[in-house]
């Protein structure tokens, strides 16, 4: 889980994950998507994603094909909950501060 979080902290790795979410893609197609990034950098990102269990790799002849591993992503499903949970925690903080200000007056 920790590896997955760290892997997702890099914007290009998130973009790669989006690319291979619905379909399997060869590494070359993934690299082509990033005009400004070297192929070796993309290869490193893919390795990080693979190590984190977020993508699976399959070899087809000389090609390497990648796709998202949704099982690992399901472990991150709780993030959807956290989106609102953390929001409500901030609401509590600002509302309680406002309440204290009111009572001081």
């Amino acid at each position, binding site marked *: 889980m920790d590896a997955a*979080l*760290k892997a*997702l*902290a*890099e*914007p290009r790795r*998130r973009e790669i*994950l*989006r690319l291979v*979410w*619905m379909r399997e893609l060869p590494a070359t197609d993934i690299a082509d998507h990033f005009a400004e990034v070297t192929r070796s950098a993309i290869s490193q990102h893919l390795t990080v994603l693979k190590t984190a269990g977020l993508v699976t790799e399959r070899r087809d002849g000389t090609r390497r094909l990648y796709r*998202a591993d*949704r099982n690992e*992503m*399901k472990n*991150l*499903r709780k*993030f*959807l*909950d*956290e*989106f*609102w*949970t*953390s*929001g*409500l*925690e*901030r*609401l*509590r*903080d*600002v*509302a*309680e501060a*406002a*309440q204290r200000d*009111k009572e001081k007056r």
Partner: protein
Amino acid sequence: MAQLVREIMIEATPETIWPFLTEPDSLVRWHGTVAEIDPRPGGIYRVLVAGQFQSAGAYVEVVPMEKVVFTFGWDEDDHPIPPGSTTIEITLHPEGDKTRVRLVHSGLPADAVDDHGRGWAHYLERLAVRVSGGDPGPDRGSAGEA
């Protein structure tokens, strides 16, 4: 369709909490960075979240100090959760000098999290902010970075 329910107890009155739900300047102190909202039935709801994700919907029901209901989605081409496609209901329940705030996000496609990578984009972004910052309040932080 899936729904998500979250509750939190706040040591403040509904009167104190209400502006944070209905006034743009107060709303962005806890949710999003830019809010364009018109909290009356049919009024627009547009909040920019995490500095780059535009959420959009419309108000359905507004009962001062008690309840606000609005539709909600992401304003992005082909997003699996389009604007107005889900509903968020926030209700305030006074309990003594505290208030229980209940948020129900309903109408979420059950597969929004599992099958649509684009639906994940928003959540991944927030996740990444949390991971790199480790502290709540990433919305304001990401505005500074943008």
